[in-house]
């Protein structure tokens, strides 16, 4: 066809017979559409990859961002834990505490929402290439529940070496970890797939600018995500969602809205995740890092709802404290002075609770740091 596009990788052979040319042309006609489709996908993927910062802002990978932020800041104290730490400890309110004679002037909250002890270890491993002077590990019952595994950890934090170690250490979670790890790897092979949620939210914001009110819920979600991303990138790891900061559990309960159901303590059993608490201790010991364990405060409702679980958890913690000889601070509600007004829901502190608890924790650590 005159003027038709002819790709360079199909050279013309002047000596080829008409039949060979016809076969080549037929082959090209058969494969051209899939090839153009593939080329289109690659091209769009490259464009998205080049603009990944824009899209990533609307769908932050909080685990990876916090680990990167911690590694970059090289803090001299790190507070490690799950969502109770992420929402409930503000390191900026703890800076300046004197630890064995010198101040700890920079802290970072490596709080992983929904994380387990397995994830805490991997965050520490990759987030602290320069060991801090003090590692505060905030623990709570749900971190140790072997009935749950957090996909995000294997997806975002673990290397293949980590997966192999985990398979050996926790055979019960071997298949799950491997699956999540490879899903993470495959997802990262395509920028479109990886940032699909960010692209959706970014597009909603752009559409809202042209056509205000066309998708209010999505735009709200986009703005919350962008604010969350900004908070993680710019701060000390303390980046609570606005929902947690302003909400009061006592008022919410009175209004008949105690919050989303909490199922993280269902089918409770311990043992497997706990192996990673030992790994955290070993890591710290190898690097000369002081470790303090903090039993994080929870509401009275949680303790009433899961008395057996909380009993098992506290018994395990006591056994572990005795056998390892590690310092444990028990941050009960009474000792901190917390009530339902300082919680956002059944387990997470709100903004006021986080401030009060952070100051209380700084004082308790300062007391410990003064001891020989």
């Amino acid at each position, binding site marked *: *066809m005159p003027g*038709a*596009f*002819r790709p360079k990788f199909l050279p013309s052979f002047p000596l080829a017979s008409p039949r060979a040319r016809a076969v080549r042309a*037929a082959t090209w*006609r*058969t*494969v*051209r*559409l*899939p*090839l*153009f*489709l*593939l*080329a*289109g*996908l690659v*091209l*769009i993927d490259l464009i998205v990859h080049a603009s990944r910062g824009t899209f990533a802002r609307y769908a932050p990978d909080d685990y990876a961002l916090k680990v990167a932020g911690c590694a970059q800041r090289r803090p001299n104290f790190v507070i490690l834990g799950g969502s109770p730490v992420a929402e409930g400890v503000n390191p900026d309110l703890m800076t300046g505490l004197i630890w064995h004679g010198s101040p700890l002037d920079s802290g970072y909250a490596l709080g992983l929402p929904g994380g387990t002890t397995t994830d805490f270890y991997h965050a520490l491993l990759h987030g602290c290439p320069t060991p801090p002077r003090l590692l505060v590990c905030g623990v709570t019952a749900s971190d140790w529940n072997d009935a749950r595994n957090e996909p995000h950890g294997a997806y975002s934090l673990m290397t293949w070496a980590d997966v192999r170690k985990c398979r050996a250490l926790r055979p019960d979670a071997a298949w799950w970890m491997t699956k999540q790890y490879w899903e993470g790897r495959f997802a990262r092979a395509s920028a*479109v*797939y990886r940032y*699909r*949620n960010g*692209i*959706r939210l970014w*597009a909603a914001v752009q559409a809202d600018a042209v056509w205000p009110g*066309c*998708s209010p819920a999505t735009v709200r979600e986009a703005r919350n995500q962008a604010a969350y991303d900004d908070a993680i990138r710019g701060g000390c790891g303390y980046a609570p969602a606005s929902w947690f900061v302003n909400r009061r559990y006592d008022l919410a309960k009175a209004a008949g809205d105690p919050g989303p159901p909490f199922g993280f303590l269902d089918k409770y059993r311990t043992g497997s995740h706990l192996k990673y608490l030992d790994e955290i201790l070993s890591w710290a010991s190898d690097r000369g890092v002081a470790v303090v364990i903090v039993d994080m405060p929870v509401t009275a409702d949680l303790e009433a709802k899961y008395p057996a679980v909380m009993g098992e958890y506290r018994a395990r913690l006591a056994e572990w404290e005795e056998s390892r000889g590690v310092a444990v601070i028990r941050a009960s509600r009474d000792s901190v002075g917390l009530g339902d007004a300082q919680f956002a829901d059944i387990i997470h502190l709100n903004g006021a609770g986080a401030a009060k608890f952070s100051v209380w924790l700084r004082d308790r650590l300062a007391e410990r740091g003064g001891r020989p």
Partner: protein
Amino acid sequence: MIFTTPAFLVFLPLVLVGYHALAGRAWKYRFLLGASWAFYSLCSPRYLWVILLLTAIDFAVGKRIEDATDARQKKRWLGLSVVSNLALLAAFKYVPFAYDNVAALARLLGADVPNRVWTLLLPLGISFHTFQGIAYTVDVYRGQVRAVRSFTDYALFVAFFPQLAAGPIVRATEFLPQMAVPPTVTAGRIDDGAHLVMTGLVKKLFIADWLDKLIVSPVFGDPAAFDPAARRWAVVAWAVQIYCDFSGYSDIARGLAKWFGFELPINFNLPYLATSIADFWRRWHVSFSTWLRDYLYFPLGGNRRGTARTNINLLLVFVLCGLWHGAAWNWIAYGFLYGLAMVAHRTFDRAVSGIGWADAVRATLTWKLIGWAATLTIHLAGLVIVRMPSWGQGLLILKSFVPDGSSAGILSGVPIWVPILIGLGMTGHVAAVLPRLRKSWGDDAGAAARGFGYAALVVLLVCFGPGVGQSFIYIQF
């Protein structure tokens, strides 16, 4: 592992590459059969034996029927095939329903029957491949098709994975002749297949799933919480959702089949342009409605035994049509509604056909529009019946179509995307009544435009679909 899951995106290229890399008909078909059974096993791990058993029975029965010399023997073999297929279908699909109703009846009579605490998972595509098996043995019995002598060929005809889960219900006369020679994949088939697959994916992932999330599920979940305008939008959206969901599946199945060199029959022919209820069933789920006609309505006597018997046959066929869709009283009522509508339509048609002025009126555009509106109204009522949470709530939804001035506006709080998606879902129907504007896309520039366009669509679906992996509605039937 349905078509819209990430796992299928790994499965499909592997099977396509393996199939086209192999040389020779026998190896290609063995490979494709293995892949189809693997697909079945991944979707329905515990039930591979169901399709294997029925395939073996129907394959053997087909040969026995053809080899049998006397009619009674042929009939006995045919009976074995029909009973085997229907027995397994009934066992999996209707036993829980039957138990519930017998138990309820027994309780009414004072017996102490426990509630059912067990349930049965439905094997993948059992409603479709059993009908395909029955059609095959009946066709062999009628002498319309030769019995297949190769087990691989027959098993592939039954288990061919693009149409395994939700049809189209393929006839042996349509599929087996295509298997005689190794299928060739031409540029035309690649292009047409890509077009069908992309169309199907957009219908399912973008239109059907979004409509479900935005309005259909919320409103049908709690109709009383929404005002009449929202309920009306939800019913229309539900009609578009089910069309896009099922015709989307059929489009994907036909497109995938083309990539393997096979043609599957058209299952939907612009059903929402139907101007009568009979016309509707000639356009909606065509492979199923023609199956009912050829293997149920005609054997019952069709229209050859007088008006009363014809009407009973129509009612029976449509009640069974409803029951095929789901073991529930809603579906039986749905079938009964369509049966009544068919009887009414046929009675009216016979009464006025041949009267000059009546024929003239019925040929006008106005009459066609009235017929179209009436057909659509019956269809919407049927769809409300099958999705309503309870009979009371169904009545509430149906009452919404009687204006009472209580709505706050046309949209009445319904997201603007709902009418947009409804319009998008009906694009094919609208385009069909417009003058053809097609131009040739056969050159390289056209292929490039289509290829890049499809790539953009894939990205659109990945980023803006409400959630990959939601099941197709008809897979549950």
